[in-house]
């Protein structure tokens, strides 16, 4: 496994750009560990940008939920940005759009931490 994640630090926010077409059971475990490692290492604010993600399955959603719970237990925040329409509709179907703060772009999200 080797997932294409680009990580960037801007002020006190760590942005993880998921540079994959699919976020699924094959690769989402890696994203999950990455977020866990960051929160355990003291990160407070993580933004996951899904601009390149055309497809998400229940394991991908699960990895993000896991990150969100990790954020809470570390008194931090996990927010999302740049969801493509079909990906967004998966959040709606599973009601997760009520759980996550979702922004249109990474820069808009950065202004709202």
């Amino acid at each position, binding site marked *: 496994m080797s997932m294409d994640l680009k990580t960037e630090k801007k002020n006190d926010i760590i942005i993880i750009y998921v540079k994959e077409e699919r976020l699924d059971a094959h690769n989402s475990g890696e994203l999950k560990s990455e977020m866990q490692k960051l929160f355990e290492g003291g990160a407070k604010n993580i933004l996951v940008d899904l601009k390149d993600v055309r497809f998400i399955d229940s394991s991908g959603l699960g990895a993000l939920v896991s990150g969100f719970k990790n954020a809470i237990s570390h008194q931090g925040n996990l927010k999302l940005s740049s969801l493509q329409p079909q990906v967004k509709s*998966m959040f709606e179907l599973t009601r997760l759009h009520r759980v996550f703060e979702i922004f249109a772009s990474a820069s808009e999200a950065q202004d709202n931490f």
Partner: protein
Amino acid sequence: MEKKDIEVDIKVPNQTRYLSLIGRIGEDIAKELDKYTGDRETLAYHINLVLTEAMVNAIKYANAKDPEKLVHIVINISDDALVIKVFDKGQGFDINTIPSPDFNRLEDRGRGIFLIRSLMDSVCYKKVRNGNVLEMSKKLH
């Protein structure tokens, strides 16, 4: 099989790295369905998703102990429906006991069957010779 049907029968190794191939083949087939009256791009996504969810479950819950096993998938298009069958050789389970996710609790898992049920018109899981099959179908008009 009816005369005008399309049937695609796929066997791949029991590995998640083949999810994207199966999903893409499903999308290709969905996009070919010119008799479908809804949005074909959306249908393609949904077929990709249910194939992915069903194949992941076959890998996780039924084939896990034997990485040499194959996942067997059959996609069939007839005049009025798209039918997907995903076979496994595990212990099986009773799909009717799987609840919808509790939207007020935040769980990492438990959304696969829910998504399949939400996106397909009929879903069943049953014993067949040598194992089980998850059969799901979508009406085309």
